[in-house]
């Protein structure tokens, strides 16, 4: 009898601890889930930066035309792709997919790899014009088969670089 009571109490206690633990676990998972969107998402078209940027040595702004003109680098319009792929490598399966989109007049919905929260106002233009290399934030994209995020893109990371380069660390530079 006594032993049973003991066991019951132990169970109750374990349940309590377990419940707490579970809550913490859920929180931790949520926190991680929230902060980290997939680092290397699968894209609708398997675009290899290795071929374009590394082998063909195309400049980043060849396709991301607005990087030095706008806050956004800009996803290249499909017409840019088709400029070359009308005649080059037309039979590759991924290029066929691309042509399919163009023929159906249906935009490609890429998965975002580098995303900043809404309260951060980042501008590509100022960074590019200040001579920050694209790879400083995007990593060696040219060597990536599938684009992935290699930098943390957290505030501390941004600030560390800003401090090192003597860039402004006024909060209002990014938050407004």
């Amino acid at each position, binding site marked *: 009898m006594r032993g049973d009571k003991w066991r019951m109490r132990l169970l109750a206690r374990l349940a309590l601890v377990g419940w707490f633990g579970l809550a913490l676990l859920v929180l931790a998972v949520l926190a991680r889930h929230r902060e980290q969107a997939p680092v290397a998402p699968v894209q609708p078209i398997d675009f290899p930066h290795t071929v374009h940027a590394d082998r063909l040595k195309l400049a980043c702004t060849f396709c991301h035309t607005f990087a030095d003109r706008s806050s956004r680098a800009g996803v290249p319009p499909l017409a840019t792709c088709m400029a070359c792929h009308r005649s080059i490598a037309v039979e590759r399966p991924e290029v066929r997919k691309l042509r399919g989109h163009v023929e159906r007049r249906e935009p490609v919905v890429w998965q975002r790899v580098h995303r900043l929260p809404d309260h951060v106002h980042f501008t590509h233009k*100022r960074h590019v014009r200040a001579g920050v290399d694209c790879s400083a934030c995007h990593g060696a994209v040219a060597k990536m088969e599938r684009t992935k995020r290699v930098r943390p893109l957290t505030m501390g990371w941004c600030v560390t670089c800003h401090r090192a380069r003597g860039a402004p660390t006024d909060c209002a530079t990014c938050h407004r």
Partner: protein
Amino acid sequence: MDRRTFLHMLGLVTGTAALSACSSEKEQNRLISYLVPPEEGVIPGEALWHPGTCTECPAGCGMQVRLRDRWPVKAEGVPDHPVSAGGLCVRGQASLWRLYHPQRLKGPLLREGGEFRAISWDEAYARILAALDEARGTGRRSIYLAGRTTGSLAALLGESCAALELERLPEFELFCHAALRQANALLFGQGEVPHYRTDQADALFTLGADLLETFVTPVDFARQFANRAGRPGRRWWHAEPHFSLTGANADLRLPLRPGSEPHLLAWLLRRLADGGRRSLPAATVAALPDVTLSAAASATGLSPGELEELAAGLSRAQEPLVLTGGGATGGEGGLAAAMLAGLLQWTLGATGKSVDFTRTENYAGVGSLLDLERLAGQLERGEAGVLFVARANPVFHAPVAWNFAGRLRGATLRVGLGDFFDETLREMDLVLPLSHSLESWGDVEPRRGVRGLIRPAVLPLHDTRSEGDILLELRRRSGAAVPGNYQEHLFGEWRRRYDTHTLRSFVDRGFVEEPVTAPPVVLNARGATAFLRGLRLSPPSEPPMLVVAPSIRRFDGRSRPLQLLEDIPDPLTTVSYGAWVSISATDAALLRLAESDELRLSIGHWSAVLPVKVQPGLPAGVCVVQRDLLEANPGGADPRTGEALCHLDGLRLEKTGKRVDLPVLAGSSSQHGRGIIPDPAHRKEEYKRASLYPEHTHPEHRWAMAIDLALCIGCGACAAACYVENNVPVTGAKDHLRGREMSWLRIEPFYDVPGGVEFIPMLCQHCHYAPCEPVCPVYAAYHNPEGLNVQVYNRCIGTRYCSHNCPYKVRRFNWWSHRWEKPLDRMRNPDLSTRTRGMMEKCTFCIQRIRAAKDKAKDHGRPVRDGEVVTACAQSCPTGAIIFGDLNDSSSRVARLVRSERAYQVFAQLGTEPSVWYLMKKVRGEG
């Protein structure tokens, strides 16, 4: 506590945390590619400006919209526009709400058994054409009634009505200025509303015309006001029965009894006719009603001294101008007032100069209530077939006694064209939704020789058409050969009118000025004399009376759907949401009414129950209701001019004993001697700051603002601009009643001057020694290197301490996560962060605009120029009262104004050293 409770409790806490972790903004993990590159000049993520014309009221001010990622996010005035000169009023600022309003009509609707159902355009056209045929067959006449229409559409409407065999009624406007037009036709053969140049007059006497609120072109008059304000020796008298914003801004407001305007003018004319520039024929003078000074004084309720001073002021002046309109001509005796004012203008030499008949305001097609009465008769007699009502709300404006809504049933098919359900559209059988002016092509000619462009900035949000397209389509379907769509029609029209260069400028600037020839303006003395001979001055109204005033926020009621205009309080009463009646303090005491007590107003069979707001400075016996707040027009029409009666006798007042919650935003109507707007005569000496610590420096920029109180008319355009620019949430009546309005910029009226009011715009003062900053535990509020007091939203944890420590109380806490009903969310300016519940927010001096200007300057490798950064409030201000700039640049406008003798800071004695300097109306010793 038992274990279960304990677990339950914890579940709540952890659960809360988990849920809040998910409630962040939607993941934006998708990037959608363009198919083809955007057109040249369009850079994704950068702003683009589209010039055009505001269509919120008939004034036709220039308005450009800023596009961000294809969506218009902000409206601004077009610089150098002949009508508005860069300003935009509160309604213009709010006009984007009309575009994005969730309750806009989204497709054609057909009434079936009391309910509306959506139909296709094809069906709508087919039904109209069938009904037209049927009407033709039965000998009924089909009628087209439109709101004021100018420019190409007016021409097209004429053509189309002829082609479709429709009777085109004179256009309907409540503020039709019919008395003025009739008087001018009688006197000078010009049935027009002249273009008044009040800035040219050194002595200005306005009678009833609410220049700064709704009178013809309020933004233009506000700019003229600003032009006058700078010059010495100018004086402005304004006489009106109630207390309007215009009266509040005049140098001297003369409260006169309504209906006594002809008495006053007749006396003035007699008094001034001799010394005038142009003498009137003796016969005309002789025909003038014999009004002596004492008779005028007793009729108007003004003292003889005041009248003499007015007359002396006008006769002394180089360029005197007497201007009447609005309430003074809207009533029995309105025509007499307009006639006498016209004669005064003539004899004082204003006609042809400050009363300009060359570039007249274009009211050519506008009729009056009399036309509506005629229509009502036609409907009653069963003569009407199909009735079209476009962009007008006759049911709302026709006198209740006419039972216009009921008579509408006399038409065989009622077709309404509009963008929102209003009193009229609800009575229609077929409702055709019109595109917004930012979704369609068009042009307007608000003033002769000024053509404003209407140009689509965005594809139609809903299944709507422009009126031109509807007319052309009806003609096409009835078998006529018509040229393509309205856009092509317009382009053809424009190409015919303008050369390529003009066309280019038309599209780039949004307006074009065409040469106009001056018509001969000659006094028809015989006509005038005849009129005067037949004139019998009726006795003025007896109190208590009701004054139905136009509203600066909602014009004649057409801007009612725009909720932003409800969030911005009425400038004089600071009531935001809901309807009220303004009464004088004397009447309130007499009737034992406290604010928010309900009062029943009745005149004849009409009655309305409204909560009371005590309006300081209002004469006893006068109750004021804004036209848009009444459910129907209680008065009638002046049988001679057809203007709606603006002041109504025989008012009975009755206290109901109930109370209504009325959101009055001002905590007090007095500044309690706190020197927020200092009395120049008693202004204390400068406050010197003493500190143990060195002052912080801002070597690069130190942004500052100067606000000229002599120019501020309290119109609220700055507040509206701020709302739209900064995504300030519109909260609704419930939160306003609890004191939770979110406006970053507000206009405070203080009634400390006897009989008058002073306005002061209050916004974050960006104090050099900001009390809000050190109390923030997490550095969410701090001072940035450019002298701005920055609030970092995502760092804020919501202690609200900063708000308490702000002596100006300009910080706003997000009590909720404010929702933007679709598609209003399109209007959000993406240059700013979204604020969610629990964050403090406040004026940023439009930091996004500062950034944009610095970015541009950096691109060109030069410093930011003075005037390059314009905050939204400064941009919108019709009088240019707000000046923004860099204090470090000693030659900047703001730096010069800060050094001015008139400059002061609010609560300087607290040592906060605001970066906002106000300029007093008068300098010490003057006045």
